[in-house]
């Protein structure tokens, strides 16, 4: 197959491009549809038709203008309808070539090639639809081991499957039902409701339903609405997680791990081991009582749509099995070390921080709106929450690793290799100085930018020691101060 001349993608790429455009602007399109549907005038239909025609035409033009070739170990892509873009990706800079397929691609027996480069100015190229053979050819020409075009057996050499982990169906169901992706679900419901609501109101449906209902108190009505919303939100989060993490597999290869997931939309993420910056374990509020958690990693360089490099390494696992998973998959993150807890005098700061604002708001609302006494449960819960945050906060370090556990909503335990730390800080506000407390923060690279792990209100001396012992000098000299008199706790603690 000739890869040295410019080639087009399979024509189906025009369709996937249009579909991607629609999906990217789905909210705008829905809003237009809802507003337009109320007017019912003829020009509106023409506008919709014209819109879709425009989308299709732009998809076709895009396909027509998108050409690529591989020449002397360099991927050259020309694209853009009005502004011509030339993208060169050299072999040495390419870190990952992912071959995967979406619904449309699979229907036509095609694949999608995703090429990612390294570094902070990482660039990525996506070839939407090509036959599998072309994709393999691209991969062979651009991967470092298949240097010469004659090396025919290079295709097989990197297809050697390593150890593969799957997600049992039972665990998938537990993961889906405890995912707690309510935020996303509620926002979807909210936008939908705000769009549908005027339609319902105009069609008198609302009054009809209200007349039908017995004249109960408003509280019951509101309660019922909340329950219905929560149930629907839960179902959305259940099924979206099911689709996202269905067919999950984690594959260990020689120098990279490959995570693939998704039922309709297959997602394949290749992470070279050397790009892993940190590992963290999240115990969600619904999962913690059941003894489950999820394992993520931070990967440097190429981020997702939001530029974040957090990747799900394993979506659901029993707490007591985390250690063995880490040992097998990422042994460099398998550590056990003594952790320091914030001193007991920090408790009131933890509680104050999480409860103060809510307490103030509740008090103001209580006296101005004369709310029911039940509303005091909100600040009471936040006090309890502050106590939980204090209980879960701990930090520990050795010459090679830093472990920080804390809680915002979920409990998060992060394991960081010292050599991967981008910078570390301790800070103290004037109240903290008065109480002789400090906060510590560690930054690691993640995606296009960084990500940080923080612990609040540790003992002042501990903070100073943290900074000093992790400085290069201290590690060279190999001094390891004994951690006496401090409150100790085992970390990571599973």
């Amino acid at each position, binding site marked *: 197959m000739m890869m040295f001349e410019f080639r087009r993608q399979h024509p189906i790429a025009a369709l996937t491009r249009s579909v991607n455009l629609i999906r990217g602007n789905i909210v705008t399109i829905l809003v237009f549809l809802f507003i337009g549907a109320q007017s019912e005038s003829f020009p509106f239909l023409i506008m919709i038709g014209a819109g879709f025609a425009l989308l299709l035409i732009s998809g076709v033009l895009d396909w027509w203008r998108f050409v690529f070739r591989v020449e002397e170990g360099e991927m050259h892509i020309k694209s853009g309808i009005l502004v011509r873009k030339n993208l060169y990706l050299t072999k040495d800079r390419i870190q990952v070539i992912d071959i995967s397929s979406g619904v449309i691609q699979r229907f036509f027996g095609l694949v999608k090639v995703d090429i990612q480069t390294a570094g902070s100015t990482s660039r990525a190229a996506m070839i939407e639809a090509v036959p599998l053979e072309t994709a393999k050819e691209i991969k062979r020409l651009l991967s470092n081991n298949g240097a010469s075009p004659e090396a025919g057996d290079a295709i097989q050499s990197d297809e050697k499957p390593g150890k593969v982990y799957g997600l049992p169906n039972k665990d998938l169901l537990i993961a889906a039902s405890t995912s707690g992706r309510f935020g996303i679900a509620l926002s979807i419901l909210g936008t939908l409701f705000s769009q549908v609501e005027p339609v319902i109101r105009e069609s008198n449906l609302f009054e009809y339903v209200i007349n039908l209902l017995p004249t109960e108190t408003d509280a019951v009505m509101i309660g019922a609405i909340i329950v219905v919303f929560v149930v629907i939100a839960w179902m959305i989060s259940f099924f979206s997680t099911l689709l996202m993490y269905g067919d999950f597999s984690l594959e260990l290869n020689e120098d990279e791990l490959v995570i693939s997931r998704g039922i309709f939309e297959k997602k394949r993420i290749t992470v070279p081991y050397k790009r892993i910056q940190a590992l963290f374990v999240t115990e969600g509020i619904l999962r913690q009582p059941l003894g489950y958690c999820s394992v993520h990693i931070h990967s440097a360089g190429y981020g997702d749509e939001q530029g974040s490099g957090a990747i799900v390494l394993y979506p659901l696992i029993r707490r007591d099995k985390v250690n063995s998973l880490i040992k097998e998959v990422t042994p460099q993150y398998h550590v056990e070390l003594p952790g320091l807890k914030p001193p007991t005098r920090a408790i009131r700061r933890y509680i104050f921080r999480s409860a103060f604002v809510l307490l103030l708001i509740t008090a103001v609302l209580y006296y101005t709106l004369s709310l029911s006494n039940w509303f005091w449960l909100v600040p009471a819960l936040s006090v309890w929450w502050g106590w939980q945050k204090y209980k879960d906060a701990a930090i520990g370090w050795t010459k090679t690793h830093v472990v920080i556990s804390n809680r915002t909503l979920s409990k998060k335990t992060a394991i960081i290799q010292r*050599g991967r*730390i*981008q*910078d570390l800080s*301790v800070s103290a506000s004037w109240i903290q100085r008065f109480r002789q407390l400090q906060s510590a923060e560690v930054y690691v690279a993640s995606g296009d*930018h960084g990500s940080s792990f923080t612990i609040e209100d540790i003992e002042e001396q501990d903070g100073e020691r943290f900074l000093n012992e992790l*400085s290069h000098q201290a590690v060279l000299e190999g001094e390891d101060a004994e951690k006496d008199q401090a409150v100790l706790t085992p970390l990571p603690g599973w």
Partner: protein
Amino acid sequence: MEKSSSKKISPKVIGVWRYGSAIGFAFLLALPVIYYSIFGFRQVHLWILLTVSALCLAVWLLNVVILPPLQWKRWRYSINQYEIGLLRGVLVQTETLIPLSRVQHVDTRQGPVLRWYGLASVTISTAATTHEIPGLDAELADRLRRRISTYARLADDDV
């Protein structure tokens, strides 16, 4: 971090910060004027207006007159072969350690006000964060930039 080798930044930066804050917090002085134009100053409004004016002026003066010298006094930086150490902050005091092997690039920057004072700032970027040492003499800033990038290259070879 070796505290002994830590250096201060140029005291001229106090002036730069004063100008910056004076302009940046100018909106505070506009607040009472806006209040006056909406409510006038009869009865209660007079007292509210007086309190608001006093508060706004106090915060403005705090940021323009009192904080800059304190900030300058707190600012320390230190550089050795392995790390850059930064110590700064008046209300919240922060101490940061940046391993030189993690430094991706170092820039010097000079805005119009800084140029007027003959100063420049050094910006240190890692893959995750960006830090700035403000208000160094332009020449020193340039030397520092070169030193950091040399060290960073050396440290890179180690890893």
